[in-house]
Each structure stands twice: as C-alpha cells, then as structure tokens.
C-alpha cells in the first residue's frame, strides 16, 4: 500500500514532463541556462563574472565513436550532458561553482537525450549549499535514471533536504526552473531564529558519531530563545569521497 502511494505520487510528479516547456535541442537548453546565468552575473544575483559563466557552463555532444557492441545492443546513441561547474561530491569550495552574494553556492549536471521527438531529461542533479544563515547545509534536486527496479522505493524525482540519505518526493521541474529557484528563491525566509535544544543536541550527536573531534566548549542555549553562543570551529578533514561532517554519497 505504501508502494502504491509512492507510485501514485511519482506518476503525478512525472506527469508534468510534457509541461516543462523544454526547448527542442540540448544546445538551445544550454543557451537558455547560460543566458540566465549571464543575466544573473550582470545583475549581481551571482558573484561569478561573465568569463566564469562562459567557461563553467559546458556541454558534451553525443559521441561519434559508438562501439559496434553498443550499436548492436540498440542502446541510446543520442545522450548528451550539460554541466554547470565541476563535479563536487566532497563539497569543497575550490571546485568551480556558482556563488550568490549571501554565500550560497551551487553547481549542476544534466543528462539529456535529443531526438526528432524533442528533448528528454534522462537525469539531473542540482545542488545548492548554504551558509549558516540557513538551517540546512545543502539541498539537492535529483532526477534519477528511469527504468530501475527500485523505482517503487526510491522516488525518481526527489529532493535531498540537507541529507544524502533522506529523499523527499518533488515535482518534476525543468533545469531552468530549478536554476531560477537557486538564483532567486531558495533562501532563508527569516533571519535569526535560534535553533532549538533538540537541533543543537542532534547536530552535536551527529558530528560526534560521524566525525569525532576533541570536545569543544559547549554552547549555552538561553531559555528565552536568544541566539546561542558560537560552538567553535570543528576541524573536520575533508577530501574527495568525504563530505565535511557527512557520509559519502
């Protein structure tokens, strides 16, 4: 019954596909994404100069050297991708990305198929990471590959709300819509709400479990809900394959 529910939710989500208004070619989508980012650079919505936008939004056309085996298997020959920024599973700032003035930063990858019928989204991931103004470290919009046996359990179209393990069903959105969310909309809706004692204890326990460090001075949470004192910097080693304070995806 739970699977039926998720399946219905997913069908509802994916039913939006014809309404996405995708341009007919991947080149046209690339141009549209780049135009929006160019506009964002000029208006100050992102800090990246135009040169960055031009060099960081790239695409790869379908390969011409399809193997004979691939041809015989009747596999897809028309798959392309569009990237915005570098691959950054470790979430380190020295990888190329786009950055907002409020410190949020993001990148994306889109896998597409282009045919006479038009453009089809095969998969994407758009991830935005926040400064501590927000209550979550990151949000990622994923469109998984289709046709997998576990689809009933894992939503093909979902959001990771600050956790690589938790997925929440999300409506199917076009890359341009998600980009707009990242540039303009996804921001803290209010300032300065103090975390509850539950949240503080939870974060402490999480860090202790996954990246134990020498005990730092404990935060004191005033009962009147005022902003807590700083917990102090945690020194978490990070590198490829490891996420700061997190589990590898």
């Amino acid at each position, binding site marked *: 019954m739970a699977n039926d529910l998720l399946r219905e939710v997913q069908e509802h989500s994916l039913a939006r596909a014809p309404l996405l208004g995708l341009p007919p070619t991947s080149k046209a989508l690339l141009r549209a994404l780049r135009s929006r980012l160019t506009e964002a650079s000029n208006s100050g919505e992102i800090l990246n100069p135009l040169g960055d936008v031009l060099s960081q939004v790239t695409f790869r056309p379908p390969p011409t050297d399809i193997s004979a085996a691939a041809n015989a298997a009747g596999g*897809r020959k028309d798959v392309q991708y569009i990237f915005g920024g570098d691959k950054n599973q470790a979430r380190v700032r020295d990888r190329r990305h786009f950055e907002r003035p409020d410190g949020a930063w993001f990148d994306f990858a889109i896998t597409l198929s282009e045919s006479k019928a038009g453009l089809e989204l095969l998969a994407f991931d758009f991830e935005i990471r926040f400064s501590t103004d927000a209550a979550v470290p990151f949000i990622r919009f994923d469109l998984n590959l289709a046709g997998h046996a576990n689809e009933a359990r894992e939503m093909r179209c979902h959001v990771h709300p600050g956790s690589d393990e938790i997925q929440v069903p999300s409506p199917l959105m076009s890359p341009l819509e998600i980009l707009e969310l990242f540039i303009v909309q996804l921001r803290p809706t209010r300032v300065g709400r103090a975390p509850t004692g539950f949240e503080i204890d939870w974060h402490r326990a999480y860090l202790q479990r996954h990246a134990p460090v020498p005990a730092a001075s404990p935060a004191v949470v005033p009962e009147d809900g005022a902003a807590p004192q700083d917990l102090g910097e945690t020194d978490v080693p990070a590198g490829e394959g490891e996420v700061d304070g997190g589990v590898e995806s």
Partner: protein
Amino acid sequence: MSGLIRVGAAEVAVRLQALSAATNTFVAIIAPVLLVELVVDEIVEELRCRFPATRSVPDDGSVQPLLAAVRDNPLTPLVARGDRFGAGEWATLDRRRSSLEREGVTVFVATEASFAELARSAPNLASLFGANVFAFDPQAEETTAAQGAQRLEALRVGSGRSDQDIIDAAEARTLPSDPEYGEWLVLLGRGDLLGGE
C-alpha cells in the same frame, strides 16, 4: 591561429551585448575556411538570444547583399561571410565605407587570408575593427578533456568503484539509478548503456 583571442559563439554574443552600444562597430571572427558557414550559423543563433532580429547576410561572393542589408537594417546586428572577398571586394567596401556606417553591429566571419587582404586593400575599413578581431574556437563551449577527467576521478573516488564496475553493472542492469551514474556512463562514452528505446 596567430595568438588572437579565441572565442566561441557564446562569448561573441556576450561581448556584442555591451559593444553594440557603440556606433559603426565591426567585429571579425577568423575561422578555418571549412567552418565559415557553420560559424556564421552559430553566431546568428547565439546573437538571436539577445538580439532576436539578428540576420545573416545572403552570400553570393559579391558585396551587394551586404550593402543592401546594411542599408535596409540600420539597427539590426548582421553577420556576413567575408571569406570569399578578395582585394577588389574589400577595396569596394573601403570606398563605400560611409555606406556601411550605422548603429547596428556588423560581424564578418573570414579566414585569416581574407582578413589579411582586408587589411591590405581596405585600410579605412580595417581601422574600424579596432582590436575586435578574434579566432573562433569550435570547442569553446564543450567540456574539456581535463574537466571530463576531473569529473570521472571525482565519481571514482566518491563511490569507491572503477569505470569497469560501472559498465559491468549497467550491462547487468544493476546500476544504481542516481543521476551521477548516468553522467559516469556518458563521460565514458557509453551513454548507449542507459537503456534502449
């Protein structure tokens, strides 16, 4: 190609978005002879994202279509082939330089040889290009080999798996459905394993 600044069609459009505020503006894009037509089309497509009325000038090897287009389109960006213009054509355009003056920007796509001839035969017109002479980079917008390698390495380290593991899993239809696995296969040139129609 002579160390000129290398640009793709997208960068041409971004530059022109600012540059086109100046009047009597001419830009030259130097391309290999076999790519000239393609470059004209790409630049027109990119410019249309910002200047929807952008036109390419019909090409019959003479200067007449250009002179007509300039006369009829005082504001619209025009993209013209200059690869087939020789000394005579450039000299004519030099004499008729005043007829080419307008508010809209004019982009010439030329070969290195034809631009050199322009510089020799049309010094007045050549001086109006200023420093806006660029070499076309057909791969400017494509992911470089280095960028692709960075992504592949990140995927390998992030998952602890090898390229062959991924290909084997895709062939066995046991590949996880996370979007990065699709990207991984495409980067390996095996987008065909993403499932047939």
